């Protein structure tokens, strides 16, 4: 017989109450686990996409970094353009490994219900997006088009099919379809840069340029060189990451607010359960005091009961959170202003440890008051009313 076994058996007295409390803690633990996994996963996915893909510097027309982020990453349209010659100049700068040009356009349907997003790209872009996996091939001619996976799914098209795009009144042959990136690329029509320039009447123009460096130590030097080009604004990928993280800050704040509420509800549920269990056992505690239980023993007993509930709720919550993480990943994407490719929720042993620590500490703190109440029971309580 041990105090742990006693605590466990005490919880078995009111099975429904115990199970409901565990479910409450499990929901809070799953929420905590998912949000912490998201917090770590989103930043990592963003860094992988922006830095890991090899673009070290983003070059656009003069403006704020947020506009540049919007331009290159999300496909937002700003009616200011770089000259095509800027791409050639950028390629010539010593220390630049690769440079790819983008021309981004969006056209709304007449009733405004649909927006077609077009991405005119140079072949160098392939080197800047090594995570792209493509069914089919690169553009074969000026009438070729590459579809993002979501577009291909909605249009029910495959490689080799023709596709008529009403917004620009032009029929293309699909040369390739991108595999799902879980990012904005899934929703783009990709055109050869010259075709895009022709149809959007922006011959010789680019929206932005992505630059990959040979040596990151030379970033400042090359950034300064690029800034000597007329009307350009250069944003390092790291700064871009920070700007995008600022963009999702609101969503994260909302998530943490929800987490706070869920944790508070769970804590109150736990407090209610333990406090009820303490109040209804006054006589029993009195008896335990009679047979030699010290105040400390009763404190330990109540804290062990609390910890057992937290442990059971925590373990099932983390398991639940882990199983649901892929579904959560899809769900959370719709609320984000920018979604990088790759998994957004990345559970890790570290997150399990931090979440366990938080659940256990909050649980123990919650159990302190009922434990203190139990320790105040006098042995006389057992004899009273006999």
């Amino acid at each position, binding site marked *: 017989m041990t105090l742990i076994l006693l605590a466990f058996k005490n919880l078995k007295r009111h099975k429904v109450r115990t199970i409901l409390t565990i479910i409450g803690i499990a929901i809070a633990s799953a929420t905590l686990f998912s949000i912490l996994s998201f917090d770590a996963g989103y930043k990592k996915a963003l860094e992988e996409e922006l830095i890991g893909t090899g673009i070290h510097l983003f070059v656009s027309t003069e403006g704020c970094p947020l506009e540049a982020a919007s331009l290159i990453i999300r496909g937002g349209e700003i009616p200011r353009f770089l000259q095509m010659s800027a791409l050639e100049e950028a390629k010539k700068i010593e220390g630049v490994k690769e440079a790819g040009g983008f021309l981004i356009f969006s056209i709304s349907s007449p009733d405004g219900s649909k927006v077609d997003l077009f991405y005119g790209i140079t072949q160098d872009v392939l080197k800047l997006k090594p995570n792209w996996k493509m069914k089919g091939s690169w553009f074969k001619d000026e009438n070729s088009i590459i579809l993002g996976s979501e577009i291909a799914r909605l249009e029910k098209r495959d490689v080799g099919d023709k596709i008529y795009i009403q917004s620009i009144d032009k029929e293309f042959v699909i040369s390739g379809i991108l595999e799902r990136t879980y990012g904005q690329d899934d929703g783009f029509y990709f055109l050869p840069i010259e075709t895009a320039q022709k149809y959007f009447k922006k011959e010789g123009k680019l929206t932005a340029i992505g630059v990959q460096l040979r040596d990151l130590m030379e970033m400042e030097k090359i950034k300064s060189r690029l800034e000597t080009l007329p009307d350009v604004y250069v944003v390092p990928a790291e700064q871009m990451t920070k700007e995008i993280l600022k963009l999702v800050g609101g969503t994260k704040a909302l998530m943490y607010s929800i987490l706070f509420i869920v944790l508070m509800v769970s804590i109150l549920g736990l407090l209610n359960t333990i406090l009820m269990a303490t109040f209804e056992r006054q006589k029993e505690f009195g008896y335990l005091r*009679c047979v030699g*239980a010290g105040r400390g023993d009763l404190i330990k007993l109540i804290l062990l009961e609390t910890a057992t509930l937290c442990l059971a709720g925590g373990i099932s919550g983390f398991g639940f959170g882990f199983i649901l993480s892929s579904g959560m990943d899809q769900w959370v994407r719709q609320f984000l202003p920018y979604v990088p490719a790759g998994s957004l929720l990345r559970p890790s042993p570290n997150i399990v440890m931090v979440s366990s620590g938080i659940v256990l500490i909050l649980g123990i703190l919650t159990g302190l008051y009922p434990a203190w109440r139990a320790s105040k029971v006098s042995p006389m309580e057992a004899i009273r009313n006999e």
Partner: protein
Amino acid sequence: MNKTIELNNVVKRYRRGTEEVHAIDGVNLSIEKGEFLSIVGPSGSGKTTLLNLIGCVDKPTSGSIKLEGVEVGNLKDKKLTRIRATDIGFVFQQFFLLPTLTASENIELPSLFVRRTNRNNNAKELLNLVGLANRQNHLPSQLSGGEMQRVAIARALINDPKILLADEPTGNLDSQNAQIIMDIFKKLNQKGLTIIVVTHNIELAQKTTRLILLKDGKVI
């Protein structure tokens, strides 16, 4: 003299609303080691209060209570807890068996609070002693009233107490089970255990070796 319990002019007063109640009023009592003593008296005579004072559950308003020569009346809670754990066994009318623990686990319960490795008794032997060897894995809900009280007696013995205090131990039992309980007490007393029983039942009290009558907080 081999006195195990000694009360000198013990007074216990407490307030009930505006009224002051003299629950125990100047009791002098000596109990020798190995005595089997019953305390009888009408309701409100102070029987249970006296038992609480002897069992270190309550403190006297004045007077002296010595257990094994040690004055316990003014001891701090921690020391009283230790005495209750190691020197005294309690049996109550209401059994106080924990519903989710088996008979065997209930018996072991008080041993959780005593850091002692050389314990003489174990649950199995004690169940044997009270005639419930075949009930060790039964939950209280699977036991009769008499069996529950026998488990409670076994539990009171787990820490090898010097004194066994029983407050109306047969109060909830029929005469047959009451007899079984008294027989167990007799057997334990014959082995040298000091036993004090509070009871309303004069017939049972007469089976003890010494009877004390209490009235209005005084020994008559």
